[in-house]
């Protein structure tokens, strides 16, 4: 009963960690710069010429790019999605008197607010009229509305090659959709609406990812992207099955995506908290066994360093070293070595310290499976299941908790 209860707890813990790992934010990416305007001209008559409207807007030296709104799309939504500052929406018609009328409005793409609106009326315009003067009030209104939504150039200083994006799951404000890359000069100027607050995330080879909020409050605002070079060595102190202290050193590889590690699991000292049983002497709470397991392993992180929970996998190979009194250290002849595999997740509590929890299994190949099973028959073996054959032995789950400290 007690084992089943603990088994449910372990399953709950595993599911909790897995769920947190899944919902942990993942990095996002986007694009653009310059003043972009989205235009749409519908209705009837000669003035319902989207091309002539776009051409007129293009001639403005204050507008950098004109995008035509896709048919059927909400112009504000589409303009916001494509990082346009303004949306120009025109509806033309031919009046019963034979004159033409174009009703226009200038829209803020972030809020949808109407910044300006008006009407152009006159005799049915020819193509030349459309090119020469028909849209002059519209262009003027767009240029006049620009300061209400305009961006100013801000400077970002950082390590060359640093890639800046927004943060997944957060509003970008006016930050570009695509990644920005710091050039070799180490400085980048981009247009941003001021005032504004921009969540950002920066990655750079050989450095930890950085993230933060850029508060662009005034003209000439600048931001420095910090850079913390990856520290290659991490020390790890864990509790094997929550009972036996073990120690590992990890070497970060591949821009902190992989790691090599080596260390020691020891059973010379540990906790052994079993329930009291009638007519059975309760063993000491401290258990000491002459066995240590030096090992080496590899692993990989499934999310970058700045994730809230950082899932990882690892695989180790270890030796079982006997330290019997009065004898020289030697490999355990029953099971000389083992292979461990685990899935885990770590959570940063400070810049250099993380705590972790991992669940896995241990396989002992080339062993005497029957003797391994006999090695545990006399003990309360807790919430662990075993499967074995003639020359192999598998035990799971293997649980480890502990902390890592980056040097």
């Amino acid at each position, binding site marked *: 009963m007690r084992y089943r209860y603990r088994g449910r*707890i*372990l399953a709950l*813990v595993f599911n909790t*960690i897995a769920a*947190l790992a899944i919902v942990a934010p993942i990095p996002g990416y986007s694009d653009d710069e310059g003043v972009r305007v989205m235009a749409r001209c519908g209705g009837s008559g000669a003035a319902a010429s989207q091309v002539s409207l776009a051409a007129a807007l293009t001639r403005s030296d204050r507008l950098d790019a004109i995008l035509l709104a896709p048919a059927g799309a909400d112009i504000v939504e589409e303009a916001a999605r494509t990082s346009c500052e303004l949306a120009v929406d025109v509806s033309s018609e031919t009046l019963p008197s034979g004159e033409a009328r174009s009703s226009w409005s200038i829209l803020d793409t972030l809020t949808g607010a109407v910044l300006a609106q008006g009407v152009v009326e006159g005799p049915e315009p020819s193509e030349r009229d459309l090119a020469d003067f028909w849209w002059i009030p519209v262009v003027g209104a767009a240029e006049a509305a620009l300061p209400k939504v305009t961006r100013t150039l801000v400077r970002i200083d950082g390590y060359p090659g640093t890639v800046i994006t927004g943060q997944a799951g957060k509003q970008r404000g006016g930050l570009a959709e695509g990644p920005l890359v710091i050039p070799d000069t180490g400085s980048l100027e981009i247009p941003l609406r001021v005032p504004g607050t921009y969540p950002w995330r920066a990655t750079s080879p050989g450095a930890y990812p950085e993230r*933060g*909020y*850029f*508060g662009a*409050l005034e003209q000439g*605002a*600048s*931001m420095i992207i*910090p850079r913390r070079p990856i520290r290659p060595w991490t020390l790890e102190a864990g*509790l094997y*099955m*929550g*009972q*036996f202290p073990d120690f590992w050193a990890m070497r970060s590889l591949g821009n902190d995506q992989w790691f090599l590690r080596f260390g020691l699991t020891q059973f010379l000292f540990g*906790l*052994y*908290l*079993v329930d009291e049983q009638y007519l059975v002497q309760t063993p000491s709470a401290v258990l000491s*066994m*002459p*066995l240590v397991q030096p090992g080496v392993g590899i692993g990989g992180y499934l999310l970058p360093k*700045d994730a*809230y*929970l950082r899932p990882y996998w690892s695989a180790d190979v270890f030796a*079982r070293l006997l330290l*019997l*009194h*009065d*004898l020289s250290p030697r490999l*355990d*002849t*029953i*099971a000389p070595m083992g292979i461990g595999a685990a899935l885990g*997740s770590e959570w*940063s*509590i400070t810049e250099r310290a993380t*705590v972790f*929890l991992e669940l896995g299994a241990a396989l002992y190949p080339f062993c005497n499976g*029957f*003797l391994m*099973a*006999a*090695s*545990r*028959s*006399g003990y309360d*073996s*807790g*919430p*662990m299941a*075993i499967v074995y054959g003639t020359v192999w*032995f598998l*035990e799971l789950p293997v*649980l480890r*908790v502990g902390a890592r400290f980056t040097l």
Partner: protein
Amino acid sequence: MTVSAHRQNGVASGFIALMAIAVSALAASCWHPTFDPMLSASEATVQKLGDPTVYFTAENVQQWGLDNAWFLPPMVDTPAVGLLVMDMGAKLAFRSIPTIDTINHTGWVNTASGFEIPNTMSDAYLAYAAPDGSSNAFVSTHISEAQIVQMSDLSNSSMVLPGTNTQGSFGIGVVAESGPTATIACYAYDALSLEPEYETRTAWSGGTPTTAFTIDPGTVLAFSSAAQVTVPGKFLAAGTYLYLSCGLSDGSRTIFRWALATADTIEPIQYTEDYGPLIGALSDGRLLAERDGIISVLDANLVRLFKFPAGTLRFVHERYDSLNARMKVVFTRTFFVKTSTHDDIGTLKVEIYEIPTADLANLAD
């Protein structure tokens, strides 16, 4: 304006993670490593001993009493019966293994005919197979009692051992001779007369040695420190010496050695138990001591000749191999594998290993 980066704290996620770690640690705190140092130690020597002479498994055996059980075979080439000795500290329980199929390697533990006796001698109790190869065992666990137990059905005959009924310190042991006989040695300290006495009986081949052990009046032992002996131990007649491995009233342990020819007149030499209590002796006069699962083979002066890891591999006796006219040291290894997660039943496996006495040094580690 410069805006520095700052980390976003997933406070809720962190709290959950810490709670998960704490709960997991508590859930796992009763786990025991898959490791038995005694079994691992035995395996190192087993690999030098080679294949067992006989091995068998018994299925659906109750785990009760098997944590420290061992197998005593008769002194024959291929044992077909045996005695399972279940050492539970203050008492011993015995089970017969009436049949051993040496072809199919199966056996049967007869749980219907077992019996239990109190053990006042801790690890120094005696359970020894008859040297003549019969399926009798000589069992002694108390100053005044011993039994001859028939392995196949556990029928037994009780006897008084030694003759005195007075409570005092006690020691007993059997050492094989170069042939199908053995020497039994017994020591008793009479708490009324305050006289330490001993008796040896050579050429014991089996059967009931009742009449051979009437110590009182026996041979008085020159032993002025007799009153200090509080913990009984092995009393062995090996070579030309008598040895008593015992505990003293101050809590220490020691080994006394007398020259057999002058044991009644000359006080013993006292040695420290550097390698653990004596557990037996061989027909060539060498002694066996064991501590922490390591058996040390000592010469007559208690100098270690070599050692080897034994763990659950138990020295049970030395027997005469009549076919090859040589003595062999016999070890047995007994272990249990639980096969049910709900009931304490499982598989009992017994292995018997032999090595010629002259080759015992091949086990040296």
